[in-house]
């Protein structure tokens, strides 16, 4: 109870600081949503030039983008701020976080309240809704369940990627933009049918790192399409399992990282 009140106080303080520059806050919120709008727009522009990309039509591609955008926006809203960890490690702000009697991860997430990212989540789910409406999906109980679980599993998966790539800063303070290759890069990867990628690149990202199970395989299962790359139909239902594995790995990496942490002394 006391812990909850402490977190509420932290959150409220951030809310007040965010709203003290109202115009900037509003523009930031619109800009944040705009980033996802442009990602979706890019897919639309590419499909203007051709009726099919990688063997998929626009409405099928929109389902893949929708699943990816909704999951990513949800993860970015909840744990995306952890990517500031490298700044906190470098500046020594993390020391102050660690001496407080609260768990470190939730505190870090509340150090910059991401209300400005709400609009983006809304947009992601709107795209997903439109894509579901545009595709003739043969609804079975299994598919309904998959439809509900997939965005959540995608959010858990992206959230784990955020935590793992931020944890790099515990070992490598100057890791700079390298995390972006997997967080934003992962989002871009999952926004397209993975049949467009070259085989070794696809093997690494889709099956090695698990990004193929975020949006592509579930979308195939929802559409009832056979995978042109040969995975069986039930592969789409693996997405929650893959997400749980990723979360377990992320938790392990984070704990090891926190224990490994040595202040920069600044």
């Amino acid at each position, binding site marked *: 109870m006391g812990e909850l009140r402490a977190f509420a106080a932290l959150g409220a303080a951030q809310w007040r600081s965010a709203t003290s*520059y109202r*115009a*900037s*806050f*509003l*523009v*930031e919120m619109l*800009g*944040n949503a*705009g*980033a996802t709008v*442009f*990602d979706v*727009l*890019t897919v639309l*522009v*590419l499909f*203007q*030039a*051709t*009726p*099919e*990309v*990688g063997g998929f039509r626009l409405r099928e591609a929109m389902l893949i983008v929708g699943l990816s955008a909704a999951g990513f926006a949800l993860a970015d809203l909840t744990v995306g701020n952890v990517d500031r960890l490298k700044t906190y490690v470098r500046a020594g702000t993390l020391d102050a976080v660690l001496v407080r009697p609260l768990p470190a991860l939730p505190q870090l997430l509340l150090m910059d309240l991401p209300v400005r990212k709400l609009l983006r989540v809304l947009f992601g789910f709107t795209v997903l809704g439109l894509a579901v409406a545009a595709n003739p999906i043969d609804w079975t109980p299994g598919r309904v369940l998959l439809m509900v679980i997939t965005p959540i599993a995608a959010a858990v998966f992206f959230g784990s990627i955020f935590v793992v790539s931020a944890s790099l800063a515990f070992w*490598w303070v*100057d*890791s*700079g*933009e*390298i995390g*972006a*290759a997997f967080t934003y*890069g992962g989002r*871009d*990867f999952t926004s*397209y049918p993975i*049949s*467009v*990628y*070259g085989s070794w*690149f696809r093997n690494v990202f889709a099956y090695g790192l698990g990004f193929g199970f975020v949006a592509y395989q579930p979308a195939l299962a929802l559409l009832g399409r056979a995978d042109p790359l040969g995975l069986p139909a039930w592969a789409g239902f693996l997405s929650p399992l893959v997400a749980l594995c990723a979360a377990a790995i992320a938790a392990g990496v984070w704990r090891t990282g926190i224990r490994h942490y040595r202040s920069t002394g600044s």
Partner: protein
Amino acid sequence: MDQRDASVPTISRIGPFRASVTTFGALTGSGFRRYATYRQATIAGTFTNIVFGFLRCYVLLAVAEEAAGQRPGGYDAGQLALYVWVGQGLLSVIGIWGWTELADRIRSGDIAADLLRPIAPVTGYLAADLGRALYCMLTRFGPPLLAGALFFPLHTPARWQTVPLFAVSVILAVVICFGCRYVVNATAYWLQDARGPITLWTLGSGVLGGLYFPLRLLPEEIVLVLWVATPLPSLLQTPLDVIAERDGPALQAALVGLQVLWAAVLLGLAGLVQRRAEKRLVVQGG
């Protein structure tokens, strides 16, 4: 006291022109050295550029494979691949993202120190930015291009003037981008917190600069309006179209000419904004 610092602009026996050239050169050198200290971040950033290069290149090539005549936006596969990989190499050279130094200094009041210097802030920051761009050109341009050349068939420029024209185009793009960032950051003189304008800039410059997809995929009229009415396509689209030889020699040169115009306009605008701001500036903090 360090004599060299005190003597350059005032009591040196060399003329005023040479003195300002020396100062500009010294500031450029310091910009270069400043970024050269972040070696690990350079490696990390290069890795990320290469990953995004693969992502974008595969997608665009898949579009080209099934597009009408296999030439979406008038590019063949080799030109598209060159567009993507040179784009990834240039991204940090042009430096669209992440520069909030001026806005931060205005907010904290440190800008007062810049105003005391015997060199105009726009000139001083431009010199440092050119140094940064030079460092990025030497370290971050090559690796993505090399990775692209190893894994994809890239278009090889056929005209003799393409490479020199590309070099000029890149320098102009750096200057234009600096001018844009300066003006965006300078909104902090009026707003205190420039995060909003910076967000809009980051967003607009990426997509309308030609990073997400070649702007030529859009309807022709929109492309024309963007190119003439905004400086954004001059940031990445122009140098990339020049090196990929998307257009005939005349249009190729004309696009660079347009960049000259935009560079002049933006440097002028940055200077104007700075002078207006100085008249009303109240230094924050204490």
